């Protein structure tokens, strides 16, 4: 059953994610080039004590006087909501490959690529990684924006076993993969 399930996933990946390029011949085009980082660097979690602008906003979670908002693929914005009329972003937790979060007590649960990560958020000036369940989400569907860029068009679709995609930038790439 499990094997069938994963075959199904792989099948659907092949059928609808990696579109055949509109042109029939291989050439260089301007498209989204993947930004790779080594596994260790990509999974490193850090805390910035300053506000950062929001590029691709995601889910929100409120607890106590704080609001946490996910930035797809990048991490979590921290908002001080002690006085709602003066609420403002105060920091950013860098968690590459993230898309979902939840909080209980002083612990923030977030996905990072296919891992589940537990962060200690009790300290206002730092964030500590308490634990990481590596590869706990085997279907990999959390990370489609890491496998494909957000916007349609040509994108680089090469993969390396020792690196992960942490972002995209415009560059000259081969027209191998196209997103509708």
């Amino acid at each position, binding site marked *: *059953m*499990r094997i069938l*399930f994963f075959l199904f*996933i792989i099948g659907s990946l092949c059928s609808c994610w990696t579109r055949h390029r509109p042109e029939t011949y291989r050439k260089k085009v301007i498209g989204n080039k993947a930004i790779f980082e080594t596994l260790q660097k990509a999974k490193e979690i850090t805390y910035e004590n300053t506000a950062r*602008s*929001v*590029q691709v*906003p995601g*889910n*929100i*979670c*409120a*607890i*106590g006087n704080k*609001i*946490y*908002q996910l930035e797809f693929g990048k991490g979590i914005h921290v*908002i001080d*909501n002690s006085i*709602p*009329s*003066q*609420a*403002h*972003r105060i920091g950013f937790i860098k968690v590459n490959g993230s*898309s*979902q*979060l*939840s*909080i*209980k*007590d*002083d*612990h923030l*649960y977030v*996905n990072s690529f296919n891992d*589940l990560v*537990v962060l*200690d958020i009790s300290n206002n000036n730092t964030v500590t990684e*308490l*634990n990481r*369940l590596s590869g*706990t*989400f085997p*279907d990999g*569907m*959390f990370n489609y924006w890491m496998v494909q860029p957000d916007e349609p068009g040509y994108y680089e679709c090469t993969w390396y076993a020792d690196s992960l995609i942490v972002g995209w930038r415009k560059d000259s790439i081969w027209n191998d993969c196209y997103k509708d």
Partner: protein
Amino acid sequence: MNYSLLKLMVVLSFSCVLFSCSKESAGTESRATNTTGTNGSLSRFAISGDYLYVVSNWALYTYNIADPGNPVKTNEEVFAFNIETIYPYKNHLFIGTTTGLYIYSIANPGTPVLEGEASHARSCDPVVANDSVAFVTLKGSSRCGPATSGLYVHDVQDLFHPTLMKTIAFDNPEGLGLKGDVLYVCCNEDGLKVFNVQNPANPVEIRTVTGANFKDVIPYGNILICYVSTGIMLYDISDPSNPVAVKLISNT
């Protein structure tokens, strides 16, 4: 003499342990007032008690987080349909999928069990619920499928057989939130619809708040936290039926 000194030391060290214990438990109790964060309705993570429930597109994962530094996966269930959202309410998980609303019992929290389902046409659908009804927004679109967009109210008093009570059609629904008898429904560029749902079988639209592109909401005490395309918008909902803008935390 030596013996009584030893005895005194033992008693003293025990009382130290006792004191430190009582201090710790007091600390946890003071935090117990607001222990679990409140997620928006578009969430795929949900915490209920000592368990974290995670839905990916095709699976429901259950983790025991009683020891927060050491989560343990207790269950993994694969679905044959596209899961969109998860909403915990009391002993139940309401799971919105592109093919219907699924209700799981978490009476045994480590192993959720399917109790009931209400199928609908293919669409996208976040859920909020209370004791008697589940409110679902369906968004028919090219990505999500051809269902009629709008608010769907399911009677869930019999969790094994949820039944559709009412449908109100409108465009672009997204996340939703419930505060007592008032339901907030995000409608993207069409604004935020405010319904009186005192009689859930017949939600009455009170007003539509405009001026932003609304994605999701969290009623949070007297504040309504709205995830809008330009940032996070806070409204005062001391009068739940009349949200008053307080602050926009702009994305830029």
